[in-house]
């Protein structure tokens, strides 16, 4: 972990907040000059940002490598879809329920898993994804198996007599943008709090953290649950955006994508993860111009990343901040 990348050691005026606002402002006017397709890519990037934020809290700040994000992403997507399809509940209820359900499921999964050390923990989280997919495939009476759940309504808000549906790409873009901004703010508040500092202490030296009296086990469990909630909320958005969920929502693909976003962007930094999700989703979309070479090019890109930016892009972003600060 480079020092420039760690928020625990940042000093002086924080330029990231005004810059963040500028970025949000830019994002707000983006639909004016972006077509539907780039907007779609950004929507996917912002949806992926949620599980990536969750994984960053777990991996980047607490030092726990988890492959379970796809499982929680899927659980969130199915929870939302089942509620919407069977009970016709409004979007915001499904969205909140998806977060609650994933958090609640993460508790009994986290208790045994977090007792395991390093590699065993990773294998265990991988198991959650496989089990999740098996359940989605085989509990046909609930999930309709491989048929999946279709016709999930677009987000629809009802407040008293007033109601409206977010149907178009632009509408959904604003909805996802608002949620991603709130999630980013939440992560920022968590890592800036004393709890965030304790998480970093656990990441840096768990034995020492334990020996100074930090209840490391409780911290790891709570962070595991929070990261699951983020993944679940992302899954819910995904279900309502694509309007269909299937056992494919439980693919390892999502876990590895989250991992690439966090590690490639810069574990332990918020701006790195935002940059990472835009970059890697953007890259996947951009490479569609050469479908037969797509995954090969993606692979080469990852290799180059590992060689030239072993800490992800965060140090680069860090240099950008200090450049701005020096110019001030």
């Amino acid at each position, binding site marked *: 972990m480079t020092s420039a990348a760690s928020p*625990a*050691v940042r000093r002086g005026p924080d330029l990231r907040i005004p810059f963040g606002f500028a970025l949000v402002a830019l994002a707000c006017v983006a639909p004016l000059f972006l077509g539907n397709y780039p907007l779609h890519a950004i929507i996917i990037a912002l949806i992926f940002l949620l599980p990536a934020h969750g994984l960053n809290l777990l991996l980047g700040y607490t030092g726990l490598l988890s492959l379970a994000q796809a499982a929680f992403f899927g659980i969130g997507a199915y929870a939302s879809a089942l509620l919407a399809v069977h009970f016709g509940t409004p979007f915001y209820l499904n969205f909140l329920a998806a977060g609650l359900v994933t958090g609640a499921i993460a508790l009994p999964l986290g208790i045994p898993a977090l007792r395991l050390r390093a590699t065993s923990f990773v294998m265990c989280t991988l198991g959650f994804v496989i089990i999740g997919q098996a359940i989605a495939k085989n509990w046909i009476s609930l999930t309709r198996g491989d048929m999946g759940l279709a016709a999930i309504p677009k987000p629809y808000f009802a407040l008293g007599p007033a109601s409206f549906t977010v149907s178009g790409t632009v509408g959904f873009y604003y909805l996802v943008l608002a949620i991603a901004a709130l999630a980013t703010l939440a992560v920022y508040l968590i890592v800036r709090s004393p709890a965030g500092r304790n998480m*970093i202490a656990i990441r*840096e030296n768990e034995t*020492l953290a334990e020996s*100074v009296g*930090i*209840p490391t086990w409780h911290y790891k469990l709570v962070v595991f649950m929070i990261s699951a909630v983020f993944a679940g909320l992302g899954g819910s958005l995904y279900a309502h955006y694509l309007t269909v969920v299937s056992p494919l929502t439980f693919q390892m693909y999502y876990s590895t994508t989250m991992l690439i976003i966090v590690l490639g962007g810069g574990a332990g930094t918020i701006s790195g993860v935002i940059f990472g999700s835009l970059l890697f989703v953007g890259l996947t979309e951009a490479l569609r111009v050469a479908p037969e070479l797509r995954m090969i090019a993606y692979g080469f890109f990852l290799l180059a990343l590992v060689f030239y930016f072993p800490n992800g892009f965060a140090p680069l972003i860090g240099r950008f901040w200090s450049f701005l600060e020096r110019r001030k």
Partner: protein
Amino acid sequence: MAEPSLSIKGLRAGYGSLDILNGVDLDVPQGQFVALMGPNGAGKSTLLKTLYGMTTVKGGSINWQGKDISAFKSRAILAEGISWVPQGRCNFPVMTVDENLQMAAYTLRDARVKAERDYVYDLFPILKTRRNTLAGNMSGGEQQLLEVAMAVLQRPKILLVDEPSVGLSPTAIGIVFDELLRINAAGQTILLVEQNTKKAMAVAQRAVILRLGKVIWDGLPADITHDELGELFLTGRMRGETDVEH
């Protein structure tokens, strides 16, 4: 000798099903500087970890100021006035000296944190000059001092120090041991585990030798030569003695 404040009797402990300590007996009176030595795998570090509640105790007792603490967890042990300085570089490298000390004060109330930090800075002025430096960017000796400071900050009644000389230059080792001697002179009880036997014997008031999870020698450092120490480490007995292991 004063009443022992720490009294270990027949202590058996280890990790999981693996037993490392096979009946350790040891009394440490208030204010004493005890060096715990022995060959690799003797159980020195395990003894310190056991005192700090980080292993599985299988039998025996650890009496600390009239209380059996063998079933206590680290946090409760810390509250009882026992602090542990783990082996090797054991700080939070991406945090500053100040932040490291703040983490070390985790269990203290906010009002006391500043006071205790100032107390530590008075004790180790060199750390005060480095207060805004990242711990990971300091020299090994400074980091070791920081680690001692992090434990001393709790104003422990006994300080458990595990191999402070690991990876340090001779000069840095000298500084760290001088500091340990200084806080011991001010009344700090210290139980030190050390591989550097020369250095340990020079500073400690008492030498305790552990082999295969048992205390095999206990006395004044002046009463044992380095050759005899080597003999004890290798064979478990002194030259001319009959085998004491069986």
